[in-house]
């Protein structure tokens, strides 16, 4: 049973998530520099690139577009990191989360859905065709990932017979859910990428549409949107640890160390794996999601339900 962390954790949470996001973005920058191969043997020097880019954006003037709806767009932009941090509130570090409500799993899902609405809003705001194209690419993406994602979440909650994240972790004391719910785990990882519109699911911010939903944003606006995306990636990937990888359970090391290790492993896998795949286009992916992933996750949920009833 997880406890609630002390009050200072509330203050610490955004900073901890931001630090993790910077580290992950730095790792990605190193991989990108290695692939680019500009200066052979020195890709490590690209590690601070996200920080540099952040400084550059901080010093920039925000942009206006003709007949846009800047406030609506800014609400959308701000919602991305806010939703990520709110979702992160139920993320247990070791066995303690900032808060552990009875319906933690549903809360997490609701906050992600908020990010879904936010990106569309960000794309709509600037009154630019390419930016709107990016915005509704994310809507299409949501239609593709949201259902399998919910079923994966449900499966984990079903296995623990509780919607409380702490009890989901407690339910994995002996055996990780990833072991006996592999399909749900894999689908969760896929949808974590899709939700953070990152990796092969970066179509909403695709280069082909000149940056998609982010195409018209400069300065702080852009920084908040892009940083919010990394936060979302960290939080969604981090949530796979309490849901499927046993949370803080593990031998020898303290619980927080296990959480950190497992989260780092999942993030490393996702960031490195991205480089192997081209961007998924939703008009091709959505059918796969609905005709393959949804039935598969349903079968997985059925199997888990039978196990739960029999034990």
């Amino acid at each position: 049973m997880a406890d609630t962390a002390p009050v200072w954790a509330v203050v610490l949470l955004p900073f901890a998530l931001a630090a993790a996001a910077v580290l992950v973005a730095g790792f990605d920058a190193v991989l990108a520099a290695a692939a680019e191969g500009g200066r052979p043997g020195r890709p490590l020097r690209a590690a601070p690139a996200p920080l540099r880019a952040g400084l550059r954006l901080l010093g920039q003037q925000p942009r206006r577009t003709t007949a846009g709806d800047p406030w609506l767009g800014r609400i959308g932009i701000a919602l991305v990191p806010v939703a990520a941090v709110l979702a992160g509130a139920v993320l247990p570090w070791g066995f303690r989360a900032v808060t552990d409500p009875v319906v933690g799993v549903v809360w997490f899902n609701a906050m992600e859905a908020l990010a879904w609405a936010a990106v569309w809003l960000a794309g709509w705001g600037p009154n630019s065709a390419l930016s709107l194209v990016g915005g509704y690419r994310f809507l299409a993406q949501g239609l593709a990932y949201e259902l399998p994602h919910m079923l994966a979440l449900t499966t984990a909650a079903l296995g623990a017979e509780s919607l409380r994240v702490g009890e989901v972790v407690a339910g994995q004391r002996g055996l990780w859910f990833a072991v006996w719910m592999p399909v749900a785990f894999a689908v969760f990882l896929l949808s974590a990428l899709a939700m953070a519109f990152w990796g092969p699911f970066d179509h909403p911010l695709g280069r082909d549409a000149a940056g998609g939903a982010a195409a018209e944003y400069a300065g702080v606006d852009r920084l908040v949107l892009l940083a919010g995306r990394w936060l979302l990636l960290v939080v969604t990937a981090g949530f796979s640890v309490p849901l499927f990888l046993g949370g803080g359970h593990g031998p020898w090391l303290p619980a927080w160390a296990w959480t950190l290790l497992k989260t780092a492993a999942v993030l490393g896998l996702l960031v490195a794996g991205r480089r192997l795949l081209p961007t998924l286009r939703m008009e091709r992916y959505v059918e796969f999601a609905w005709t393959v992933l949804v039935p598969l996750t349903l079968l997985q949920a059925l199997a888990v339900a039978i196990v739960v009833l029999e034990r």
Partner: protein
Amino acid sequence: MPDDVVFWVLAVPAVASGAMVFRYDSMARATYALLLSLLCVGGLVIRLGLDYLGVVVILMMTIEMALMAVFMVMFMMNPAGLLPMSMVHNKRGAAAVSAAVFVLLAAGIVLAPWPGRRGKPDADPTMALGESLMGPHMLTMMTLGLALFTTIVATVVLATGRGRYDRFGDDLCARRPADPVRPGARR
């Protein structure tokens, strides 16, 4: 006292942004004003102690408004709602209908003989809700679910312009459907 503060903090924006839906002349603003209103209602439901229902209201309404945006985009390629538009149609009729409904509901609230509370709320309302739905009301829920699903399928069948004969040929023998966009999953 804090409970009262929370109530008013949620209730006032809920009503205000609900009213703004009819004041804004941009589809996106109207949609998101409605979303804000519904999020506040979700918060109120949580305040009643029904955590699960409240969070589900937040979740479902957010997704619903995002879906509404899909339709918005489908019907107008008009970024940022450049074109001012009215969210009010058939003003007089609508006013009459809404006034009548309001009076009816308000009268119901005031005049109904509300029973006094007996017993205590369940320790775990989520569990109680689940047991109620899956226990005594199982038949109702199953019927409802099936009816809803049938409605969705029937609506799609009626709405779609191209049936399977258009897609797979008169003898349904075509290997690949004649769709404007090639689908992703192999058949």
